[in-house]
């Protein structure tokens, strides 16, 4: 991976407490797995930033190498890679996600 891409990815993760690398946008996800993670974050009322990997092939391939993770979406919370869709879903169902967000002092506004 080129250094400039790595810097870009690191910058996104550093500057955004809850950062989602996804296909499409939160309002218009382009993939069911990305949509599922957006749905969970919205359900919990967690503020997050996202980047659409479909608009930048360097980021799309770069983030896979960066996280050592072959699929999109990918969720980072305070610089820590939490997982992809399966893990987020499982953690949401068993309460671990809320626990993690609480531990990391991320605001939750569950309606």
């Amino acid at each position, binding site marked *: 991976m080129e250094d400039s891409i790595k810097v870009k990815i690191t910058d996104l993760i550093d500057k955004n407490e809850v950062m989602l690398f996804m296909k499409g946008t939160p309002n218009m996800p382009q993939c069911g*797995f990305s949509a599922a993670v957006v749905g969970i974050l919205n359900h919990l009322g967690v503020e997050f930033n996202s980047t659409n990997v479909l608009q930048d092939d360097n980021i799309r391939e770069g983030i*896979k190498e960066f996280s*050592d*993770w*072959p*699929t999109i979406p990918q969720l980072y919370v305070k610089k820590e*890679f*939490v*997982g*992809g*869709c*399966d*893990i987020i879903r*499982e953690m949401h169902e068993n309460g671990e996600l809320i626990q993690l967000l609480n531990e990391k002092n991320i605001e939750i506004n569950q309606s």
Partner: protein
Amino acid sequence: MPMLAKDIEKLILESFPDAKIKIDDLRGDGDHYAAYIETKAFIGLNRVKQHQMVYKALKGKMGNELHALALNTSVPK
């Protein structure tokens, strides 16, 4: 390009010979699978690490030939 469930199982077993594996073809299209994998190799590792090991066992097929493989990993009880 679809991948057969038995080929997924074979790759996983190559890396984790003790694994208990259950693979479901979710849509019957050879492209959307769910796999349950239980092996001693996962002991002491968090979920991200466990899944990363499975992806390594699949030798780069995940995200390429294999579009969707929902993973559920576990350690022997």
